[in-house]
């Protein structure tokens, strides 16, 4: 079974802190994604990566950056956390190209106070 693991299930950070959310997949998938999920808004794509060291902006990249130094790991960085970044963050991976399903991690509930 594919496993996508997010480093924390719950996280509380202070405004202005730099926050790292880590995601690891164990199936040699090429594509990795970061989404945030808010009530009524569904899953909004923040960033995605289709290869090591490659990254593409999604629909809402402002205030975030990402890092993919190794194929299995995709990190989401909040440079200076703000309260409007309080959300559920979901990482996903898919095998390759356009036509494969995405596997999701359990999510990280981030609260910025």
């Amino acid at each position, binding site marked *: 079974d594919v496993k996508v693991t997010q480093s924390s299930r719950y996280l509380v950070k202070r405004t202005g802190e730099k926050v790292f959310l880590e995601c690891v997949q164990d199936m040699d998938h090429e594509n990795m994604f970061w989404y945030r999920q808010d009530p009524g808004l569904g899953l909004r*794509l923040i960033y*995605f990566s289709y290869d090591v060291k490659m990254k593409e902006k999604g629909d809402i990249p402002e205030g975030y950056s990402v890092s993919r130094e190794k194929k299995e790991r995709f990190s989401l960085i909040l440079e200076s956390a703000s309260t409007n970044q309080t959300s559920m963050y979901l990482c996903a991976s*898919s095998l390759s190209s356009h036509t494969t399903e*995405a596997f999701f991690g359990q999510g990280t509930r981030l609260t910025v106070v």
Partner: protein
Amino acid sequence: GQQVMQIPQYQHVQEGEDFTTYCNSSTTLSNIQWYKQRPGGHPVFLIQLVKSGEVKKQKRLTFQFGEAKKNSSLHITATQTTDVGTYFCAGVGSNDYKLSFGAGTTVTVRA
């Protein structure tokens, strides 16, 4: 950029009834996927449609991809309490790897 819209946002269904949720994209898609998220869980893949006009069935669930590859629907017959959750469609653009989700349809079932 590519936008995926989904309606209705909420669907309250009497157990045993049928319902349909619809998905529309602003651009042509290379494929469309459907996911289900149970309360407290994460999205889980249900199915993928690739061909224009494609129809696929999974037991009581029927999925359809439009002829123009810009819209899709999920029809559930004889709704059961196990169908409770949020159903998302997600589209991949023709020219990129971006997987964009709709806002989801949250289904509740009255016994």
